[in-house]
Structures are given as structure tokens and as C-alpha cells.
């Protein structure tokens, strides 16, 4: 347990110090915030509840911020090989699963920080703009319910996939995936957008604003993953996203343990 915390803590510390982390994500957040059209959250009608306004912001940031998140996490595991720290880490009495879990937790926590900061800035702006102090509270809630599960989902894949397909290729594929799996209309092509596995948070946003945000619940491919948005389907979506995001880590942990045992 103390080893897990140590890996998580130092992974967090190293990642938080990277300027590229903050630059990439805050730049994306700023661009999308400043270029939002009149359907953007800034223009939600006056008097709208804080819940709706901040859910709108989380969805807006969700269009691009997770892309930056996936980019910066993509080299966290391959970098140990590049830097040459792997042999030392493997010589320490800590199993590969603990190392992976620690890197996942530390990487997720540190890389999610700019997303939280973007939400807090938006919440602060809305608090002043609309004179509603609940905005700030909902900024945090919306971050936790809408953005964080999607980021956890992305984190598992962003850490592990580059070990197999290299970080640059992962980054390219990931951008394509993000638009296909979140924003492509499901009637247009078979797609994961609008399903419980859409990491942009289609379900929680739809539930919070009381209408379909993007395509949640819209009929399409894999219909069993497209229930009507409700409290229950939001919960299922959040749990599914986190669990599916852990799958690549479980696979990698099993492979690494086996590699340590047999030549």
C-alpha cells in the first residue's frame, strides 16, 4: 500500500511539473471557451440553474480538453523505457501491478488538474456574471460527474496503448477516435457516440440538463448501450467508463508479470 502511494505521489509530482501538460490543456480549453457559438454555455438563458450552466461548460471543455489529456499521458509508460529507469524500477521489491496502478492514479490525478482548473475558471466567471455562487460548487460537481469518468477511461488506454503502437501513432488515432466515439451522429456511421461508453459525458450532461445533450439515448448501433438518460443510466455509464478504462491496465499487468517470470 505504501508503495502504491509512493508511485502515485511521485508520478503526480513529475507530471504536474511538466509545462506541456498545462500548456496543452489550458490552451485547448481557452480556445474552445472563446470560440463557442451562441449555443455555448455562456449563452445559456439568464436564470438557468447552475447545474445546467456548468454541465454545459463541462460538455464544451469535453470536446477538446480530453484530447490534450490523452496526448500528455501517452508517454508516461514509454518514457520509463526511453529514460532508462525501467531496469532500476524492476529491481525494486515492487510488483509490476503496483507500479502500473500507481502510475495510473498519479497520472490521472495530475493530468486531470488542468481540466478542473478550466472548470473552476468557468465557474468563477459564471458566478460573477450571473451572480450565483452555486456556479462554483457545480463547477466541481460537473467536473467529477461529467469529465473525470471520461478522463479515467482515456487514462487507461493512453498509458498502455503506446507500449504497443508507439506514442505518436496513438496520438493520431486517439484524436480520430475522440470525434468518432463522441461527436459523430450515430445515424451517420456505426459509432460509440451517444452510448454509455461515450467518455465525453453525454449521459450525465443529458440527465443534468433534462434533454439530450448530444446523442445520448438516440437509436443507433449497439442499441443495448443506448438506454434513455436517467439517474441509473448515468451511474451505469460512469461505472462502465471507469471499469473499461482499467481493462488495458489489467492486461498490461498480466503481461508484465509473466515477462518477469519466464524468459
Amino acid at each position: 500500500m505504501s508503495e502504491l502511494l509512493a508511485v502515485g505521489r511521485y508520478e503526480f509530482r513529475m507530471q504536474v511539473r511538466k509545462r506541456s501538460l498545462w500548456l496543452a490543456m489550458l490552451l485547448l480549453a481557452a480556445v474552445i471557451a472563446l470560440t463557442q457559438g451562441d449555443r455555448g454555455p455562456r449563452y445559456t438563458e439568464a436564470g438557468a440553474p447552475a447545474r445546467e450552466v456548468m454541465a454545459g461548460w463541462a460538455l464544451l471543455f469535453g470536446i477538446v480538453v480530453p484530447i490534450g489529456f490523452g496526448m500528455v499521458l501517452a508517454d508516461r509508460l514509454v518514457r520509463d523505457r526511453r529514460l532508462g529507469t525501467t531496469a532500476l524500477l524492476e529491481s525494486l521489491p515492487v510488483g509490476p501491478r503496483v507500479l502500473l496502478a500507481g502510475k495510473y492514479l498519479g497520472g490521472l490525478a495530475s493530468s486531470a488538474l488542468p481540466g478542473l482548473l478550466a472548470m473552476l475558471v468557468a465557474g468563477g466567471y459564471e458566478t460573477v456574471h450571473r451572480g450565483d455562487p452555486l456556479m462554483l460548487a457545480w463547477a466541481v460537481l460537473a467536473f467529477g460527474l461529467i469529465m473525470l469518468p471520461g478522463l479515467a477511461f482515456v487514462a487507461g488506454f493512453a498509458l498502455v496503448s503506446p507500449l504497443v503502437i508507439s506514442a505518436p501513432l496513438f496520438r493520431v488515432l486517439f484524436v480520430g477516435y475522440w470525434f468518432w466515439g463522441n461527436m459523430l451522429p450515430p445515424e451517420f456511421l456505426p459509432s460509440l457516440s451517444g452510448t454509455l461508453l461515450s467518455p465525453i459525458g453525454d449521459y450525465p450532461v443529458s440527465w443534468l440538463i433534462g434533454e439530450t445533450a448530444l446523442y445520448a439515448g438516440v437509436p443507433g448501433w449497439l442499441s443495448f448501450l443506448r438506454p434513455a438518460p436517467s439517474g441509473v443510466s448515468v451511474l451505469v455509464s460512469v461505472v462502465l467508463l471507469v471499469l473499461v478504462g482499467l481493462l488495458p491496465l489489467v492486461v498490461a499487468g498480466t503481461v508484465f508479470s509473466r515477462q518477469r517470470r519466464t524468459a
Partner: protein
Amino acid sequence: MDIQTTGLSRRFGKVTALHSVDLSVPGGMYGLLGANGAGKTTLMRILAGVLPPGGGEVRVGGHDLTTGAGRTAVQRRLGYLPQDLGLYPDLTPREFLDYVGLLKGLDDTRARRQQVDELLELVALSEVAGRRMKGFSGGMRRRVGIAQALLGDPALIVVDEPTAGLDPEERVRFRSLLAGLAGHRTVLLSTHIVEDVAQTCQHAAVMAGGRVVYTGTVPDLVRMGEGATWEVVTTTGAPPPVGVVVSAISRTDGTHYRVISSTAPGAHAVPAAPSLEDGYVALMQRAPAQ
């Protein structure tokens, strides 16, 4: 912790890096010599539990390294300096050592911090202890690596070319440090610098082509050069036609060659007392790598 290997082997695809290695390291300071690609790093990686052996037996302090439990038991008491250790550029040496210490199970925060500071002092890095390691020179990085290997008072220290990249003063300082530690520990040291072994080790093994071609005391290895070490002075500048030249110095009376050869390399060759390097070269000539 003593090291025992029997029939230890390891292949990488078609390359056999270790051929049935039988080695017994009792304790104290033990040198491991050998040419590039001889298999030293492969052996050390197996001993550190980083690489699974391909076949044969490995026991360290009685623990079987082919089992998970044995590996963990050894790793708890191990200090390992890999040949090409990388560091995290965004951490300071103090943080890096703290991290490694935590993973070694040094859970008492105060004791760990104190040990980290002592080790930084020992490798003369106290002044930069709070600076990020990005941009550290090769020798500074090496010293961070050495310090982390000593964390947690390990019973077995495996250091793969620890003195490569250190300036002469630092090298001398570090090898006496290691020799001082070897008292009640086992220190396995691989190096290309024969002098490091000559100055610190009682015992040594020589590897060539994945096999151990010599194990024994360092004085016995020196004796391998007896009757095969010669000095030849030539005025033409051309090296003697037979033997391996280990040194050549130009002086006013001509070029002084030191030559390893089983027969006298010329009529004017004078037998010389061998050094460890001469013994090593003589051994390698007799048992060439396959």
C-alpha cells in the same frame, strides 16, 4: 549474501548471452571482467531479478531467484546500479532517492530523509540536492545512481560499471567507498577498468562469449601474465611482430612496448613483472572468446 549459479543460461533469440554459467561468489568484493558483449550485464540483470533466467539455477543468500518469493526476498536486500541508469529529469536527486527509498520499503520518513542526505553527502552531491536533474553531467548522474544503490543498507550490491564516466579522483574515491562497504556484504562489480578490480577485489571472475573462463583470486589472475609479459624497445617505431601490445610509450631511446606473448617477441625482449591487466590479457589470449 552469497551468490551461487549452476548451469545458468540465457538466450536472446539466436544470441546465447550466457552459456551454462557456474559461479560462486562468497561475499566481500568480487570483480567481474570481460570484453564487450561477454555477458556481464545479462548475468547482473538476472541476479537483480530484472531478467528471468533461461535455464539453470540461481541462488542468492539461499533464495531461489526463479521463484517470485525468492526474487522479492533478494530484492529487499539488494542495491543495484544498472549499466545505463536513466534518471527522471523533473526530479531532484533528493526526491529521486526518496522515491527509490520508499519503493525499497524504507517507510520511516525521518530515517529515510536522513539516510538520503547522508548518501548525497557521501557522493558529494549535497550542493545540488535540490536542483532538478535535467542537465546533470554524466558523472553527476552516475553518482546519483551510486547513491540510490546504497539506500537501505543492502546486503548485496550489484554495480554494473559504476566507475564509467567518473573523473579519476571521483573514481578512486568511489572504489574505496565500495571496498569499505564490502566488509560484511557482497559487492559484485563489473568493469572494463582492470585497475578498479586490482585495487579493490580479492576475487574475480572473467567472462568471455557468455562463459566464465576464470574464477579465482586476483593475485592468481595476475600470475596468468607470468612468463608472458615482455618489454621491447624499438627505434623504428614499428610494434613487435608477435603478441598483444598493452602499452607503447615513446622515449628518447625509442618506443617502449609492453607485450603479452607466450614466446619472446624478438631477441631484445626483456621479461617483465605482470600487472593485473597483463594477466587478464594473457588469459584472454589463451582462452579466446568464441
